[in-house]
């Protein structure tokens, strides 16, 4: 007999009662433990009290904004943060991710989508710490240490920039990486705003690694925010 499994704790922060109610219903039905908070102040208090395994945070909160809550929590909180947003604020989504949020979901969303994101985020908590030397995604193999990329066993020649972009995205697979993060990581902080150049590189990269570059399966675009590397 194994010990009864500890329930996973999720803190839901949203000022709208309907959303809180819906999320609580959906999540408790899936055996998650749900804690609710209506605003930023409450969210920070609850996070300190209960240390949740995951945080679902609405961006448009009264008082302290979701982004600021995120920044505040990131000083000590290591768990995944999933932001909820409405369709119109792509710009803020990117800021939230730069502030340390791990993913976002646009309202209205389906239950399936929500649960998939939660599972992906929770799965990532542990293996994140270990850097994998070789990453496999379908028939694509990225050898980080040797700087070799192969598809179907054939070598693919990439420029230094292209390899760095691919390696960084793949090491953070299934996570949204904002253009700013990529640019800062690869080009340096002074290039953080040059998203156009990044897009041109990504376009070249896709033409080399994707079976069909116009319908990419590895490097997915998160419109207005950044990119996500898909392992599946």
């Amino acid at each position, binding site marked *: 007999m194994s010990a009864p499994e500890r329930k996973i704790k999720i803190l839901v922060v949203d000022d709208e009662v309907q959303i809180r109610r819906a999320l609580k219903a959906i999540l408790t039905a899936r055996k998650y433990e749900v804690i609710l908070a209506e605003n930023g102040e409450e969210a920070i208090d609850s996070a300190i009290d209960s240390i949740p395994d995951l945080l679902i945070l609405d961006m448009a909160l009264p008082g302290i904004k979701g982004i600021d809550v995120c920044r505040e929590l990131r000083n000590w909180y290591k768990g995944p943060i999933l932001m909820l947003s409405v369709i119109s604020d792509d710009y803020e989504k990117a800021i939230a991710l730069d502030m340390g949020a791990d993913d976002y979901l646009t309202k209205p969303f389906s239950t399936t989508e929500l649960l998939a994101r939660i599972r992906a985020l929770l799965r990532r908590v542990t293996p994140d710490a270990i850097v994998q030397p070789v990453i496999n995604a379908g028939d694509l193999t990225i050898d980080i240490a040797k700087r070799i990329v192969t598809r179907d066993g054939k070598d693919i020649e990439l420029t230094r920039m292209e390899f760095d972009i691919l390696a960084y995205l793949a090491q953070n697979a299934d996570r949204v990486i904002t253009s700013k993060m990529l640019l800062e990581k690869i080009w340096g902080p002074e290039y953080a705003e040059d998203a156009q150049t990044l897009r041109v590189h990504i376009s070249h990269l896709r033409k080399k690694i994707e079976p069909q570059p*116009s319908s990419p399966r590895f490097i997915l675009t998160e419109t207005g925010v950044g990119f996500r590397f898909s392992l599946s």
Partner: protein
Amino acid sequence: MKTLKRFAEKHGYLFSILCVIIATTLFSPGRDYFAKGQWAFLYLLIVGLVAGFAGVKPALLTAILAFFTWNFFFLPPYNTFRIHDPKDWLSLFVFLVVAVEMGMQTGRMREHEAEARAHEREMSMLNQFSAHLVSDAPVADIAKLMMSQVMEMTHADSAAVYLADVEGKLYELLSVTNDDIPMEKSVNQIAEWAYKQSKAVGLPKIEKRSDPSVVGWPISATFDQAGAEKERKDLFIPLQTAEKIEGILYIGPKTNGHSYCFSDVRPLIAMANQATAFFERKRLQSVAVRAEALIEANKLKSTLISSVSHELKTPIASIMATISNLTTEDMKWDAVAFQQELASVQDDLDRLTNSINALLNLSRLESEDWKPKMEWFDLADVIWAAVSKIPQKQRSRIEVNLPNELPMVRVDLMQIASALENLLINSLTYGPQDVPVKLGASEEDEYCRIWVEDKGPGIAPDERERIFEKFYRGKSSSRFSSGTGLGLAVSREIVHYHGGRIWVEDAIPHGARFVISLPIEKEPQLQ
């Protein structure tokens, strides 16, 4: 001949003296060949000549000079003013009278003729000017034309047109100076003063206000601000209608330093009056256009509100009906029927989401921050961004078929994506419900195409333009209640803004194919 004429006009008296001296020098060697009386006729000829060239006053001087020289050189005893024959006294005085009379008549005739010619010139200039006023020329063009004609007519060194703006504040529309010397600062102040007082500045005194050519003149006034006592040599003419003053016409001092006289001012006033009517018409026109635009915008808003509230209410009503049906206590639902009902709720919710997105796009389009921000994007990303905006359930009906590679394009991604989204929603809504909607793209030499194709009945040729108009709903769409009637209009606006084209054509074998074509620029070089 021309130089002679100009000289005579400018220095009339000198010309007169010279004529008499030359004539006398020429005549005197022959004074013994003709009778003494006959020389008088030759002198009369000179008087006529001077009158014709230089006008009345020099002619009178000539007459008097001739009177003395004839006496001195041709009436015996020669070279004295004394006269022997008493009959000569008589002829001498008759000569004077005739010469004076003749000089006056000829001189007047000349002056009338010159006046008539000037008048004719003014008239033709005015006619030409008014011909331009009838055309729909822009205000600045007319002001420019007026200034150049005024300067040509008066030989002024500068001119300017001031107009009142909508709030009644005077501003300088245009100004021209010879040799680009900047205009005096005081000109602006005086124009302001003249505008506020509705008074002209610098006009010559008008003797008889009853003179018909004076009726309608602006009230004459001289600018008498402290410290500016000297008479001004320039003119400020109000552009005045019966009820309102439209602006000020400024005419700088004459290049020759003379003041403006009555005959200078008359055509200027006539021209100013014509221009005033034009400026007034233009002002009223812009007021009318603005009012019309306002009415149009209000109409648009109310149509939009009614159309959108319908769009929002219908699915909500349908959801409420379904839910209340499901929650009726005495009903027992089997699982399949229950699922079906819930699926219809989901359809309605998708519809609501579409409408709200459309509304958001529209409100962004109306606010100023919807200026396209052109950046380089993968065309595939643009297409997928549009597809991802379609609610899940409808999205599954879209069959995307892209070529392996697509170019980079310089666009505003959000805008082109919503233009494409509108085409998708349009085809998903109006095409047959159970067949896929096809989405494709292609790359040509200088442009790329994105198209959305349905398997519906297609669009009749006479409707192909009109379906892109605001609130136009295709004839075949009347059986559908949904749609704001704005989607395609918004798409067209966006595509045109990007220098592209949008149209609808027949799909093969049948159906409608909506096409967006966008120009391709050269991809940016990477360092």
